[in-house]
């Protein structure tokens, strides 16, 4: 009995000593980090597993435990907040660009920029991104909170068979929104099928941002003033309404319904995230083609990128450093090659797409993905409304869009929305 007690005490003491030792271990010592992601079995889990395995070979000292989170970025964020409230956050996680500002300002984290002094290769790491892309992880003051990892842009997918049936040339997809309207109407009139759908969401305004900003409008301008009822925005929403109400070439339905219709061959064009590419290629039973998202005639395109950035949430220094190392690997040419091959996202690392050692062959083999790659020079951060009421503000715009597509007068609807936004964002 006494012996057993002694063993127990011995075990306890050694465990506590080990625990104490781990705390003071240098950052290179053996450490386990948890990585939270949203990549389900059908949405890139293989890429996560391959990345972790390869990293394990390179840095056997750092053990990465990857955990899938249900419910996309919103679900991950909910679980993250719960874990934080319980004092047990993962070392690192993917944060959707739509939650970027929220995470920067509301969630306790270690900015990536903190490693600029510690790591002599820091500037090489940041310069390894496609020029300008690393800025997606910066706040207004220039602090590098996170770095971009997954990248997607809107793409114009179209059904070449319907194009031919409507007497349109599938080799000449519309380049401007005005041309798109004509093509959509022609499909509607000649084939009886719907012409075009624009991706919509019940929680964000990702595609509308591209539509509006390319027309010179801003939901929120540089001075922080709400620009929702300004002429450029009104014009863009009026255009959208005309597709639906005047031409009846755009179906007023939910996004799931648009997607089903497109895949069933009953929607001519569909402007949607490039992240759907792999799925569309697999499921489309018609000749699927892609093109860059249209712009407004004579105006500079501004394309809001979707996807996620990597944040460090780990509580102790060893975990933070280990997470930083893993992030460096994930965004390197090698890490990006693993990631892009199994997801269909666009690479964030500079030069990797033309590098014969990495992704050149992939992009040569998949001409459809080139349309997505071609838009990167026009990319701008996805800018949801900031602040603690930001998500609620998105809802105001969603309801305004629903009213407009339902036939409500555009300008008064947007003026009302502006008033509601002012109350939420003041």
């Amino acid at each position, binding site marked *: 009995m006494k012996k057993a007690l002694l063993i127990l005490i011995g075990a306890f003491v050694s465990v506590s000593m080990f625990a104490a030792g781990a705390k003071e271990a240098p950052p290179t010592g053996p450490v386990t980090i948890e990585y939270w992601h949203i990549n389900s079995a059908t949405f890139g889990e293989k890429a996560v597993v391959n990345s972790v395995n390869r990293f394990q070979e390179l840095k056997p000292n750092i053990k990465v435990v990857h955990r899938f989170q249900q419910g996309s970025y919103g679900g991950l964020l909910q679980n993250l907040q719960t874990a934080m*409230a319980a004092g047990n956050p993962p070392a690192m996680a993917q944060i959707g660009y739509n939650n970027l500002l929220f995470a920067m300002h*509301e969630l306790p984290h270690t900015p990536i920029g903190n490693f600029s002094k510690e790591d002599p290769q820091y500037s090489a790491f940041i310069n390894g991104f496609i020029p300008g892309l690393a800025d997606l992880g910066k706040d207004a003051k220039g602090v590098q909170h996170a770095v971009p990892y997954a990248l997607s842009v809107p793409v114009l997918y179209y059904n070449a068979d319907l194009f031919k049936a409507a007497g349109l040339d599938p080799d000449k997809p519309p380049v401007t929104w005005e041309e798109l309207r004509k093509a959509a109407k022609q499909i509607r009139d000649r084939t009886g099928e719907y012409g075009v759908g624009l991706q919509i969401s019940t929680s964000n305004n990702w595609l509308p941002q591209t539509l509006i900003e390319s027309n010179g409008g801003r939901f929120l301008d540089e001075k922080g003033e709400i620009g929702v009822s300004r002429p450029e925005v009104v014009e863009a929403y009026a255009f959208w309404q005309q597709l639906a109400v005047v031409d009846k070439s755009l179906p*007023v*339905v*939910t996004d799931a319904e648009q997607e*089903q219709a497109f895949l069933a061959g009953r929607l001519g064009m569909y402007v949607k995230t490039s992240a759907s590419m792999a799925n569309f290629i697999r499921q489309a039973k018609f000749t699927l083609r892609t093109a860059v998202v249209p712009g407004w005639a004579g105006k500079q395109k501004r394309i809001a990128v979707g996807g996620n950035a990597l944040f460090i949430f780990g509580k102790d220094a060893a975990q933070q450093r280990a997470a930083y190392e893993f992030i460096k690997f994930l965004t390197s040419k090698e890490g990006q090659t693993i990631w892009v091959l199994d997801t269909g996202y666009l690479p964030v690392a500079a030069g990797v797409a033309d590098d014969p050692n990495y992704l050149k062959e992939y992009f040569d083999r998949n001409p459809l993905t080139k349309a997505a790659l071609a838009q990167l020079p026009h990319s701008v951060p996805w800018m949801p409304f900031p602040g603690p009421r930001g998500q*609620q503000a998105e809802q105001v715009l969603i*309801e305004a869009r*629903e009213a407009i597509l339902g036939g409500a007068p555009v300008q008064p609807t947007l003026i009302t929305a502006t008033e509601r936004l002012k109350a939420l964002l003041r």
Partner: protein
Amino acid sequence: MNRLIPKKENLKKTGHALTGFLFTLPALTGFTLFVYRPLMETIYLSFHDWNMVSRTKKFIGWDNYKEILTSDSFYQALWNTGVYAIWLIVFIIFLPLLLSYGLTRVGKWERNLYRITLFAPTVVSLGIASVLFVWIFNPIGGFIASVIEMFGGIPLNWTSSLERAKTPIITVVAWKSLGYNMVLLLAGIGAVPEEVKQAAEIDGAVGLKLWRYIILPLISPTILTVFVLTISMSAEYVFTPIHVITGGGPQGVTTNVVFEIYRQAFQWFRVGLSSTFSVIVLGIFIALLGFKIKLSERIVSYEER
């Protein structure tokens, strides 16, 4: 003096009470931990502003209550919940009642066949059913649209129409719950004693009369149970199809109280406001419960044994 020294009899009573208390302790512990404690916390949070992660919960008094009671979305959610309740009463109380009436009039073999067929949807998960109904109601090439087109009609828009968006949601819940309620009601009907029915028949109560004066009053406790389940479904159960099919839109016509509570807390991170919403809804349900108790005293006949 008398009051200070307990009489032997009183002591015995206290002892009984203690034993009783000990017996209920396991259940009580669970209730306290998982029902009352969170309830108290919800009431506490309803007076605070909190985003779920911040260390500080800011006390703001009645501000949350004022904000909710003056917001349109609260009344819209409440109204929608009421509309869901009314339609569900039609589809999962009256309809199963009619069906079970019909089932008592067919042979045993047919009855079992119908019972299995109508009960089958109950075992399908609500999430999967919702996804299925997205396709059924899709105005472009969906099942209903295809049938309408086959007869040369113009397909209706459901999920994005202000007038019809509730239809798919009510359909999913009704489709899934109808069979379950029907089985409950059938069990109630089966429990009506044969001799009572025979006696009534001898007295001339046949067919519908038998139903109106004998069976319906005797199964009224079952109907009340089904009724209460339906009301709570219109708040809780409807959540999944809202989440999957419409996300509360268009313009909030499909949202309900539980979806609003969820959205405030987990999409907008306004935990205090969401708690306030819950507390107000709880108040409404307590009032409804009081009404239910009154009602059951008046019109429900419990068989005296």
